[in-house]
């Protein structure tokens, strides 16, 4: 209960800090906030729906989103940092599509890489188990030991 309470307090203070930063960003750097907000819209959506541990999906999506947003933001900052420039950049459809695609790719990787790793691990385990079972079967045959239960199951199913 104590730990849960501490987590809730930390989350609450984090939320407050995020709100403060966002508010400051919108107030002090409105063109950047506008451009960033549009380009990182998928990350914002993931922020609300990601329930993975440590928000790992959000992290990947956000990093890819930032990677896809570096060039437009740099262009905004070097192009006068105005609302017009921001809208001009957003009016180029390739800019948001590229940023959103990058975030999509980030989401995809966050989903696919664990799956691939798991497939690889399971495969490796199966190979190992087959090897051990083979050794066990050889021992049983050579010394008249009882078969391993899993082997008996295999025999029965066969």
């Amino acid at each position, binding site marked *: 209960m104590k730990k849960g309470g501490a987590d809730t307090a930390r989350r609450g203070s984090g939320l407050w800090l995020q709100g403060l930063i966002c508010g400051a960003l919108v107030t002090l750097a409105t063109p950047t906030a506008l451009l960033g907000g549009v380009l990182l819209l998928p990350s914002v959506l993931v922020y609300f729906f990601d329930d993975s541990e440590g928000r790992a999906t959000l992290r990947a999506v956000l990093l890819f989103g930032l990677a896809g947003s570096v060039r437009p933001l740099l262009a905004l900052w070097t192009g006068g940092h105005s609302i017009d420039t921001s809208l001009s950049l957003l009016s180029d459809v390739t800019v948001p599509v590229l940023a959103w695609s990058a975030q999509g790719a980030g989401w995809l990787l966050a989903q696919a890489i664990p*799956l691939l790793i798991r497939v690889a691990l399971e495969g490796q385990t199966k190979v190992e188990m087959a090897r051990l079972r083979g050794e066990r079967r050889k021992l049983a045959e050579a010394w*008249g030991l009882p078969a391993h239960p899993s082997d008996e199951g295999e025999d029965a199913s066969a």
Partner: protein
Amino acid sequence: MSMPPAKPASPRTGAAAPTPPAAANEPLIAGRYAVDLNRPLQGAGGGSAAYAVTDRRDNRAGLMAVQVAHGAPPRLSVFTALAELSDPRLVVPLAYGGVMGREGRLQWFVVCTAPAGPPLWPHEATTIRPWNDADLVARVLRPAAAVLEMLEARRQTHRGLRPGNLFGDPGGSGPITLGCAWAGPPGYAQPALFEPPYMAMCAPSARGEGQIADDVYALGVTLLVLALGRMPLAGMDADAIVRRKLEQGCFQALAGDARLSPMIADLAGGMMAQQPEHRPTPVLLSDPSAARARKVAARPPRLAPQALEVGGIAVYDSRSLAFAVARQPEAGARLVRTGVADHWLRRVLGDSTLAGRIEEIQRIRNSEGGPSDALADARLVMQAVALLDPLAPLCWRGVALWPDAIGSALVADSVDATTRGRIEEVIAQEIPFTWGLARADHCNPMLLRQQAKEQRALLRQRGWAGGLQRLDYSLNLLLPCRSKLLSDRPVTRMRDLLLALEALSGREDLRTMPPIDREMAAFIAAHTEGKLDKQIAGLGDAGEPEDLVIDQLSVLAELQKRYKAPALPGLAGWIVELMGPELKGWHNRATQAARQQAMAEAVPAGDLSAMLALLQDKAAREIDDRDFAAAQAAARNLDIRLARLRASSDARAEAATRLGQEGAAAAGLTALVASIVAALLA
């Protein structure tokens, strides 16, 4: 073995008949004697059935086979002691063995030399012409005494002297021949008339070896019977004859008022003395005048003026009292326990010394147990009989026997389960020693003690190497093996047993059971004199079937080696079949298969020791056991690893998720850095 001189042709013995050729697989005794069951020899067996015999090896003439009663094996000692003997005055035992009879039942025979002439007392005759003194001395007494002297020198007794078992020469004027007394236990075929009363009161199989004085006694009765030409006390049963002999004295009881020549009366009277040491020796009998002159003054029994009644029998002297107590053990025990007997002995008979001894055992008995203690009563009766008549045999709960006849008494066909149980008690309680102590002047108690202890040890020995069955064979070395498997095969020697088992191995119905059964085990234990007791005892243990087969094989292999038996491939195959397809004693399957193969290859050679060595290779077994333990440990380790792998599925999923997410984050970070660098460079 020396041969007796060839006898003239005799239709009785079939000696002159030409030897027919031996038929294939003809059953032979001792590998040479063929018994012709179609040619019985009337009267030649002295009361037992006798048949003509053909010697297939040496064509020896003048032989016969005397049938042995079931459960009455002959003495082994006479075969060794008389083996080299060649004496026309004695029917000499040559061999012992069994052949299949007409009824499909094994019959046992003692092959011996055949008497040349007819018996002195024809079969079923009631009277004969009385013999004169000269013929009795020259033709009967002197030759018989000479033979008894020779037997005594060889530490043997005859125990079959009677007119029906003495044979004249064909001419009817020469010395007589002592007939076959070897086809049963000592005195087995003797009527009570010809036995001293202390032998006659025992069952025929329980009379024991006795001493040469007992043969002198029988010879004395024989002289008397031949001189009278009739059987005295004819029609009386054995107990009545014994009682009459004890009450009146043997000579008086038999001769009565008959008219006898002084010489025969003196000789027979001396030879029939109650005390064995009062009878003349065979050496003395060879000089009848000297034997006649030697008169030992035996004290006549003290007679009481009033009788004591024991179970309906009125007795007047201590010997008769002993006999009555022995025959009526319950009534006798009551008399002794309640003090009636010692009172009668002291007050009526006037023998205070004997009364004091009886009183002493009565006192001990009453201090040991209550009136219902049957065992204490039996012990009391046994001691009372021994004290009242020290010449009497051991009497235990109605059974009278001499300690050296325990063996033959145990196996006699006539012995019922109750009597067998009584004899078992005698052995279990070491009664012969107690009996010997009560009559120490007439025996060696220490020797009896040693024998009693040995017998008790065998009785108490556990497993198949002990018990009554072991005693049956240990005390009767010529008792055929009574295994049901061998019902049609004569087996009295170990070598015969192995050959019989080899022959039995062809029977498919037997090959599912181990070759050695309980009866055979006892037989083997007795004939190997305890050297295989340890292995044999294990045969009766209910263990793993394969262990049992190995135990059987070890016994059989030892026997094959010890008795130099030929190859036994049939028996070897029987054992291999019992072992089954797997040699369970070995763990490694490859080793099992190799040993099984080697066992199968060893079968045709029939070498049981080689097969046993294959199964009991100690060094290889140790290696096999050690490797098996290692294999078990390795299997356990593999099982644990497999279980761990199976149980780690969730952990793998979690690791995959964690690694995947970190990978995705790393890729995103890389992309971000690359993007920033690219943007800056651009």
